[in-house]
């Protein structure tokens, strides 16, 4: 197996405590950064590493940091996106539960690079264990002098707070997260202004995903060039692929960016159990367009998947075999987006609810043939007309299921039953 970075800390709970973490070289990168590097050097290293946001958007981390204006009278904040709501994704939970110190170290490095002295970790409200372990780890780190008034004995101050969410997928969207942190509903903001200029309380703010930050210590220790070389051309390093569904070994697999989807499913996750055949894969969390069985030779990196009309996103790989009704799979998907739409803007608010109803009818055997056209057209107009990308996240799978599994949908409409002879579910 190739090199592992995060998995060394995630395979079990050995890296949980401060002592154990430190014994493995923990916090050395943070110390190096605070005592001997300049913010510019750190940003350079991260840019060289080709580290791209692992929460879903895939935006260059180093570039994002460089948007923070220097020498302002306002404080700079870091908001850690630990909302992990994208269905199919569970990697951040592992990091926070099993190696919270790794995240803290990453936060120290990021904050030093962008000039922030205060970080808020926005953790989704259901992650009780993550929250408890993070709070404990923060106290431990403070005790050992890695946080507080003088990080590693240097005149760099840093405080980290854990902020608990309260159940809203939309708060994983950057600016909705900021609104929620500020004590309001998670309504995404209009952009511009972008968070780097005006984020938390009108101040410059960096928002980074947990996993993205977790890779920083290794980038500092072994260099950006090393990290970049582990991955593929424009997408450096490794990442955690979360595999679930009809596979023999669901779980996390840390692999180079650019690994093929086939390899992930068959070489690592053990393939499909029970003698079943692969039918459909969600490659990057529920918001990604689905891929069929003959599309899995695709390389799993941001650009390759984008070129294929889908996305790497949060690398939540959900595998479905031939027993799964695609109409039902789409119904579950649209039900999710309708439930999670914040309701702020008209296309998403009305469109997601509408699509859920249409697919519920098709699923329940009371679909009409014009529904299929309605679905395709609505998907088209959900994209590009909204404040945030949740609508796209609903539109992409919608369009892909209907296009790639058209015959199944048609069967439900014309014959009022499922091709797979499953019991019709009336929503």
């Amino acid at each position, binding site marked *: 197996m190739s090199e592992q970075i995060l998995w060394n800390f995630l395979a079990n709970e050995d890296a949980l405590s401060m002592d154990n973490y430190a014994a493995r070289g923990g916090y050395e990168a943070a110390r190096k950064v605070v005592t001997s590097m300049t913010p510019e050097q750190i940003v350079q290293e991260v840019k060289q590493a080709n580290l791209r946001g692992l929460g879903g958007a895939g935006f260059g981390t180093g570039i994002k940091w460089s948007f923070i204006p220097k020498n302002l009278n306002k404080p700079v904040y870091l908001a850690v996106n630990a909302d*992990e*709501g*994208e*269905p*199919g*994704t*569970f990697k*951040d*939970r592992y990091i926070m539960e099993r190696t919270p110190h790794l995240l803290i170290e990453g936060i120290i490095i990021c904050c030093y690079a962008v000039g922030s002295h205060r970080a808020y970790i926005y953790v*989704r*409200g*259901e*992650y*009780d*264990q993550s929250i408890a372990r993070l709070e404990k780890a923060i106290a431990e780190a403070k005790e050992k002098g890695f946080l507080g008034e003088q990080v590693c004995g240097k005149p760099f101050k840093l405080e980290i*707070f854990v*902020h*608990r*969410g*309260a*159940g*809203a*997928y939309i708060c994983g969207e950057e600016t909705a997260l900021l609104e*929620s*942190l*500020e*004590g*309001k*509903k*998670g309504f995404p903001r209009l952009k511009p202004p972008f968070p780097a200029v005006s984020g938390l*309380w009108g101040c410059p703010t960096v928002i980074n995903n947990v996993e993205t930050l977790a890779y920083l210590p290794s980038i500092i220790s072994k260099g950006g060039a090393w990290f970049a070389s582990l991955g593929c051309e424009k997408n450096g390093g490794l990442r955690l692929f*979360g*595999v*679930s*569904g*009809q596979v023999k070994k*669901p*779980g*996390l697999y840390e692999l180079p960016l650019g690994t093929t989807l086939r390899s992930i499913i068959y070489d690592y996750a053990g393939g499909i159990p029970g003698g079943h055949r692969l039918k459909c894969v*969600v490659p990057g969390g*529920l918001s990604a367009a689905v891929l069929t069985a003959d599309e899995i030779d695709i390389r799993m990196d941001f650009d390759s998947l984008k070129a294929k009309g889908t996305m790497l996103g949060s690398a*939540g790989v*959900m595998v*479905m075999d031939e027993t*799964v009704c695609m109409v*039902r*799979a789409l119904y*579950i*998907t649209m*039900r*999710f987006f309708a*439930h*999670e739409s*914040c309701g702020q803007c008209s296309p998403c608010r009305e469109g997601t609810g509408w699509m859920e109803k249409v697919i519920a009818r098709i699923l329940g055997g009371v679909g009409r043939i014009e529904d299929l056209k309605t679905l395709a057209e609505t998907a088209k107009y959900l994209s590009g007309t909204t404040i945030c990308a949740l609508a796209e996240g609903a539109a992409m799978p919608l369009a892909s299921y209907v296009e790639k599994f058209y015959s199944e949908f048609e069967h439900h409409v014309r014959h009022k039953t499922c091709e797979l002879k499953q019991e019709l579910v009336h929503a």
Partner: protein
Amino acid sequence: MAKMSFPSELLPVAEKILKNYPEAQAALLPILHLFQNRDGYIKEGVDQIVADYLSLPLIKVQEVLSFYTLYAKQPQGKRHFQFCRTLTCSILGGELLADYFGKKVGIKPGEVSKDGQFSYEKVECLGACEIAPMVRAGKCYAGPLNESKIDKLIQEKSHV
């Protein structure tokens, strides 16, 4: 109705929370969690108490309470079960297992069992797809589930 003051036993923690943020409104979600932890749900009148404490218009607190799903507006069972119903969990039978749980305990989603022990609901992805189909029981995740595991969960005295 006389103005209800902020409960004294929660004041020290609330004041500590306030210090974490440069603006009082940011303490809204954490302070609402405080009340939910204490009472098991958000009792009537808490919205006004918190609004007064944070000097916020009442409507802003009401909006937040209505927007976020974790704030329960009705009493829940001592052990509240949240069964995931999103993609992986659902295709692996999660919703049917939730129905099984409901039938076993004798309640529908949103209801509390007569002895006050159990309540349940079906929720969206809880971020534990590798143990699908799964449930959030109190503060713990449990999965992969099957009927016998659910029987065991029901019999357990409390959440781990």
